[in-house]
């Protein structure tokens, strides 16, 4: 399959009052056309920053290096006005918190139509028809009423559906979903995930799904990247990752997923997530790793293909820098 998005050696630092936070530490992965790529990791590991960097929405105190190739063009070199034509048209994003992602003082109509008119060049009437069609497509049965509503009059699930409808309004080739179900209750979560799957098969866009929930990953993703403290530590097809996790961090993550069928105590990872102001040298996971060797403190392991399609960044599995 063709690669739609390629992130190549992305480094992001934030200048803060307390020093420079090294938030992304050489992140590389790619998303193919039509696939759902999951990015998992704990809070603060850099998932959302990665998402925002693709759309160039990071705050001005961020320093970025590396390449983000979208359809072969480096987004980091594009002028701002060209980026504005990509945002919401070629690449759309839905955010974690549907309760605050819509503007409270404007009707849904205003917010949706502004975007549709902008990207599709439609008249107000045509845009309204398009919006109604989109709202129906995301399972909202009374589009007229939804368009007339203010966000506070709608439930969280409805708002997230509206966000999805907005995201799909220009038929984007990439949908970034940043924890799209985290703020919703479980039944609504399932509906939203199924909706994304269903729409993907109809409109054939790729999805970058960011989550900390391995259950969500197992349910919808084709491939998964595991992030730890600003690094991608493992990339594999979903089934392969769950059956044969290589990186000690991935193994640790999977061992803390409770299985209701087997009654055994969970084994939590020892230690806690390092500060990104002063991250550990070498492999950033080494202070928490039960297999850590001397080399892990010295040299950062690079991501390499251990078995076909299964990449890992760990000295336990050899690789170029492990020699």
């Amino acid at each position: 399959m063709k690669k739609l998005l390629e992130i190549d050696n992305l480094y992001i630092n934030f200048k803060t009052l307390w020093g420079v936070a090294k938030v992304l530490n050489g992140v590389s992965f790619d998303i193919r056309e039509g696939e759902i790529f999951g990015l998992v990791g704990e809070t603060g590991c850099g998932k959302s920053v990665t998402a925002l960097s693709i759309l160039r929405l990071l705050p001005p105190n961020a320093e970025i290096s590396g390449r983000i190739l979208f359809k072969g063009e480096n987004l980091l070199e594009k002028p701002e006005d060209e980026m504005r034509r990509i945002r919401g048209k070629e690449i759309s994003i839905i955010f974690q918190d549907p309760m605050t992602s819509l503007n409270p003082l404007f009707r849904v109509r205003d917010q949706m139509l502004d975007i549709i008119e902008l990207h599709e060049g439609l008249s107000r009437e045509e845009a309204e028809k398009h919006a109604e069609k989109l709202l129906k497509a995301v399972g909202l049965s009374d589009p007229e009423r939804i368009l007339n509503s203010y966000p506070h009059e709608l439930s969280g699930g409805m708002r997230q559906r509206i966000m999805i409808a907005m995201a799909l309004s220009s038929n984007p080739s990439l949908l970034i979903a940043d924890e799209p179900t985290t703020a919703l209750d479980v039944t609504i979560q399932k509906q939203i995930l199924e909706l994304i799957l269903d729409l993907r098969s109809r409109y054939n866009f790729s999805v970058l799904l960011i989550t900390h929930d391995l259950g969500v990953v197992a349910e919808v993703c084709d491939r998964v990247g595991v992030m730890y403290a600003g690094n991608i530590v493992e990339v594999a097809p979903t089934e392969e990752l769950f059956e044969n996790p290589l990186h000690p961090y991935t193994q640790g993550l999977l061992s803390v997923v409770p299985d209701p069928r087997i009654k055994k105590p969970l084994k939590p990872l020892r230690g806690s997530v390092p500060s990104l102001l002063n991250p550990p040298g070498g492999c950033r996971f080494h202070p928490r790793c039960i297999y850590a060797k001397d080399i892990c403190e010295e040299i950062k392991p690079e991501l390499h293909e251990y078995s076909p399609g299964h990449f890992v960044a760990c000295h336990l599995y050899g690789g170029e820098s492990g020699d």
Partner: protein
Amino acid sequence: MKFREYVIYRLVLAVFVIVGVVTVVFFISRVIPSDPAALWVGAHPTPEAIEKAREQLHLNDPLLKQFGYYLWSLIHGDLGVSIRTHNPVAQDLKSAFTATFELILVAEFLAVIVGIPLGVYSAVKKDSWLDNLSRIFAISGVSLPAFWFGIVLQLIFFKHLGLLPLAGRVGTVVMLEHPLHVITGFYLLDSLITGNFPVFVDALKHLILPAVTLAMYPVGLITRQVRSMMIEVLNENYIRTAWAYGLPPKKIYFKYALKNAIAPALITVGLSFAYTLIGAFLVELIFNWPGLGRYAAYAIMSMDYPAVLGVTIIAATAYVFINLIVDLIQVRLDPRIKL
């Protein structure tokens, strides 16, 4: 509660507020030792004349009865006769009120069209030279005394540049050559309606300096409030959404963010409007503006209690109505506010 019911409810409350204020001011003005009768008859009075005036003004009646007289005529739209000018207070007030109202309208308009964009750009370009400059400007506007600022403007634009008139509402010569047919009492409006262009231009010229002087304070406040609210709002998730969908910056700042940031500035405009109606007497004095503040100051100094009460009624009514209007606009702006 429905919109109309709410407005009626507030208007009923307003009547109580205004009656309350009138009561308090009436008794205070009578408790202060002074002799309105002596003022009424003028210089070198005979004791008989003063006694006659006292009868005429009901000053010999018990205080409560005097208050009854006053309320009775107030209900009939009669505010009494000014002791100082011997004109009906209502007539005095009408011309003073329109003069001040016209001035404040222009001043607040200036404050809004300068303060809001300045606040927005200050927030957008936070900590840039533009922001620093606008903050210095804003803090000067709030802290420099208006009368001092007015005098400086007169020095520059009248004395040195000779561009604008020193004081007054309209030039005497212009008024003699092109008599203005007064309809509403707002000179700009009346001259426009009647097509009296020379008076319009002259009145506008006279208006500029006092209006700019009065605008300084609200401009400073509005700039600061819009700036700090905008900084907050620009960090909200829904603004990030707007960026993420490629909306143009102007639309994000002035449509999606500003509506969320405007409320405190709106209240400032309302309150400074009401305050300036009476509170601008120093500026009115400097620019010899025949307005309400000046009228109120003279009325108080000469113990002209019918005039003082009249001014009080106007001020109280203005506060009540402007607060009501501001509240109603807030409701219109934010659908989450329930009446």
